[in-house]
């Protein structure tokens, strides 16, 4: 528990304020410490306790994250709502929602995982008492990584290393600029056939650079102009679809070579 590392009492009032990471943690602490029923939180009481703790934290010069203040406002809001008389004018059709409901749901959800974290911690303790063998001295391959264990982090770390070695990191990004509109036209035409539809987004699959986006887009405009592909939008704000036209059959694109 975070609360274990009690902040040093510099105010001399004799209070100890545990270090809380967030407002939910603080609230759970107050509920537990005061042995309050989480399903029926006495809001006025808990709000008061909460605000007092914030004051103590302030007096200890702890920086108070915005989250704590938002929660303070929420508590005060709930408190004021609960002071209002229950409206009985509305035919008692709908029972008015308890103003505490949302907060309790959040607390319960958080509490559940806080407890699961406790269980994981006990597993951690057990695991720390068993030891595997140091790998055999075949460490010549230190940098190698098992394919089965590869994840995206490895890929990105490798890319970062590449970039770190580049004299000018921009090299990595401008390298592809030779890719021409003509290349992309060939590519688009090769992807399409008469009657085949593609989502607009699909032609950008794998497109990584701004340059390539532009080139792809220009190529698309060109094939639309040539009547090879049509663009459809079936509903307002719906996905754009590309449809190959019959012109694709007899178009050999040789004219592109004659530019």
């Amino acid at each position, binding site marked *: *528990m*975070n609360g274990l590392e009690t902040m040093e009492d510099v105010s001399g009032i004799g209070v100890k304020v545990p270090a809380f*990471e*967030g*407002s*939910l*943690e603080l609230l759970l602490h107050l509920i537990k410490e005061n042995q309050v029923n989480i*399903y*029926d939180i006495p809001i006025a009481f808990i709000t008061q306790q909460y605000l007092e703790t914030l004051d103590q934290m302030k007096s200890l010069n702890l920086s108070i*994250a915005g*989250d704590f203040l938002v*929660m303070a406002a929420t508590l005060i809001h709930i408190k004021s709502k609960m002071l209002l008389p229950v409206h009985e004018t509305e035919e008692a059709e709908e*029972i008015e*929602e*308890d103003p*505490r*409901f949302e907060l*309790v*749901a*959040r607390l*319960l*959800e*958080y*509490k*559940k*995982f*806080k*407890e*699961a*974290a*406790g*269980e*994981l*911690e006990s*597993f*951690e303790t*057990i*695991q*720390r*008492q*068993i*030891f*595997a*063998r*140091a*790998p*055999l001295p075949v460490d010549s391959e230190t940098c190698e990584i098992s394919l*089965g*264990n590869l*994840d*995206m*982090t490895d890929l990105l770390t490798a890319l970062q290393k590449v970039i770190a070695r580049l004299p000018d990191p921009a090299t990595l990004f401008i390298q592809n600029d030779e890719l021409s509109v003509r290349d992309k036209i060939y590519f688009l035409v090769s992807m399409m056939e008469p009657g085949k539809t593609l989502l607009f987004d699909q032609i950008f699959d794998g497109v990584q650079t701004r340059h390539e986006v532009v080139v792809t887009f220009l190529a698309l405009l060109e094939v639309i102009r040539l009547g090879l592909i049509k663009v459809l939008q079936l509903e307002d704000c719906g996905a754009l679809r590309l449809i190959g036209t019959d012109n694709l059959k007899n178009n050999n694109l040789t004219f592109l070579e004659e530019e």
Partner: protein
Amino acid sequence: MEDHEIKPIIEALLFVSGDAISVERIREVLPEIEKSKIIEMLVALQETYEQSDRGMQIVLVASEYQMTTRSEMSPWVKKLEKIKTASRLSQPSLETLAIIAYKQPLTRAEVEAIRGVDAAGVIKTLIDRRLVKIVGRKEVAGRPLMYGTTRDFLLYFGLPNLAGLPTLKEFSDIAEREAELSEESDSSELALEPASEVESCEESLVTSEESK
């Protein structure tokens, strides 16, 4: 090949591997042996190690088998100064890891919604420790990255697989409450459904309101 020939080979492989090793990997080394036979031998080895006074044991972690020291040996093993132990996980890390483990795949914002605090730094730490990885993107506005746990996560906590995670405790409490309140008794269903949990606390709140 006879059992008494296969067993020492598997034992040697476990020893030499150091890391946990899958049944499939063992089969690549011993392709002529049936998978079921290999599992049988592994279980037999596990038992042999358990029965006698041994310094090691064979455990099932991340659906793989690993030879490790027994926990009772830890005071002495730790004294061999060579053995380095990674620092323990902080409370925020454990909580974040618990949320990711049970709700994966999920985004950073979803973690933050539960803990109520910024999760970026903690997630970065967990990625650096290879306990959490990026598993994809959520197809919503902004296409945020989604996170999940790694094989190392299972190894770190000695879990055979994700199903080996302890059941979330809070649910049964609420299930009981619900049963109490509405005299229904389908607690089993609640195992992993936050929605129903929310409902049940709504009910209890309403009830407590009415009783005032």
